[in-house]
């Protein structure tokens, strides 16, 4: 399994007690019963976990992702741009 997705599943499990098997690429945050404030909390934990900074979006509707896969893509994109040397998560710190 994708290591980013696995870590994301752990965040959802720890923060909201959502079973890991429910957090699949095609699920939306709404499907998981989460609202915009919950998403903020998830952002915070993602930043801690992946040592990235999720920039504040200026356009209406925030980051515009709907599905878990969108979050995974965003994380991997930010890791690439913010850690060009290529580390993936805290293991290499």
């Amino acid at each position, binding site marked *: 399994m994708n290591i980013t997705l696995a870590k994301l599943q752990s965040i959802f499990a720890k*923060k*909201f*007690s959502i079973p890991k098997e429910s957090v699949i690429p095609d699920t939306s945050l709404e499907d998981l019963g989460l609202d915009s*404030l919950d998403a*903020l*909390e998830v*952002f*915070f934990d993602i*930043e801690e976990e992946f040592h990235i900074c999720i920039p504040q979006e200026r356009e209406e509707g925030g980051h515009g992702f709907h599905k878990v896969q969108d979050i995974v893509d965003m994380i991997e994109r930010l890791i690439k741009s913010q850690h060009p040397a290529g580390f993936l998560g805290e293991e290499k710190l």
Partner: protein
Amino acid sequence: MRRVVVTGLGAISPTGNTLDDIFANLMAGKSSISPVTIDGPRGTYSNIAGAVAFDPVHYFSPQKISTLDRTTQLALAAASAAIADSNIHFSSEARFQAGVYIGTGVGAANTWEQSYVQLLDRDPNRLRPLTILTVMTNAPASHIAMEYGLEGPNLTFTCACASSAVAIGEAYRQIKHGYTDTMIAGGTEAMLTFGLFKAWDAMRVLALIDEEDPSASCRPFSKNRSGLVLGEGASVVVLEERERAVARGAKIYGELVGYGSSNDASHITKPSVEGQARAMTLALADAGISPDEIGYINAHGTATSLNDVTETLAIKHVFGERATAIPISATKSMHGHLLGAAGALEFLITMLALQRGAIPPTAHLDQPDPACDLDYVANQGRQGQNIRYAMSNSFAFGGTNAVLIARS
């Protein structure tokens, strides 16, 4: 004329979390003040306090806990107990006529402190995303409204040690004057933090610890008093318009008949006899009774020399020669000073005294201060008291005085 009755009581208090425990401990003269050790960023701090036995995991999910400051957690738990006690259920129509008034002196002290430690000591870039929603002072009242769907007026009162007496008094007026039928009113305070203790220390008003018996450190009206002891907790009452309460067959503790509110307008901490006396006189006038009819006073009684002597003089000013005949107790000797929750806890105790015909004592009063020469119910509670009217006093830094009068 719309009348206002008390149909539910609930508290998370140093002296117990059920009405029976609270009143039994107080009647037994049992102090709940004990040593506390607080973790600070560079070590620990030790003192005494009236701390509550409260574990949020018994009340909220782990996810929810991190989004609620301790003040909100305590307020929700006390409101839940009061609403269960009143056995009230809000129909979709009744919800528009039901409001929430909560008092707090400091607000979310624990979350503020944790946030500053995080920001200044660990990582200057990051605070939790919901920090604002956790620290906002109206969070307790808002969460109570959300929990029970109460869509009427929702206000938070802050005037230091009188905050929750004012919240109850203003809630009473909402019903009396026809704006609402039901009010959830009370106060909450959770400020036993490293920073707040240090700030109180700096003011030199905290009691010295009695080395032989730390629980006896708070001694209102006593010659050997040395200051106040901080406490934490929440207390909430359910107020209802009397006819509606009777119609639904509610258990009625008593009727809230008078509220007086004034400000000394003279000094930020030093209380004034005139200001306090005026609040008592206004409450008596609101109740439409003469001073002769008051059968019990739950005093503000903080155990600072300024408060105790001033309050004694103010009571004498209002009640004249009869002042010596009224039993007065300072229950802070046993639960400490809950600041923004003090007035609500003491009003709850006053209602229990009325309902049960029993007067809790002022504990640790072995050496009366000659300047405090009234009947403070020293050390021994009194059973079998037929009290018709009782008064609860709350006086605050900032000069606000709030007095509530209830009838059995």
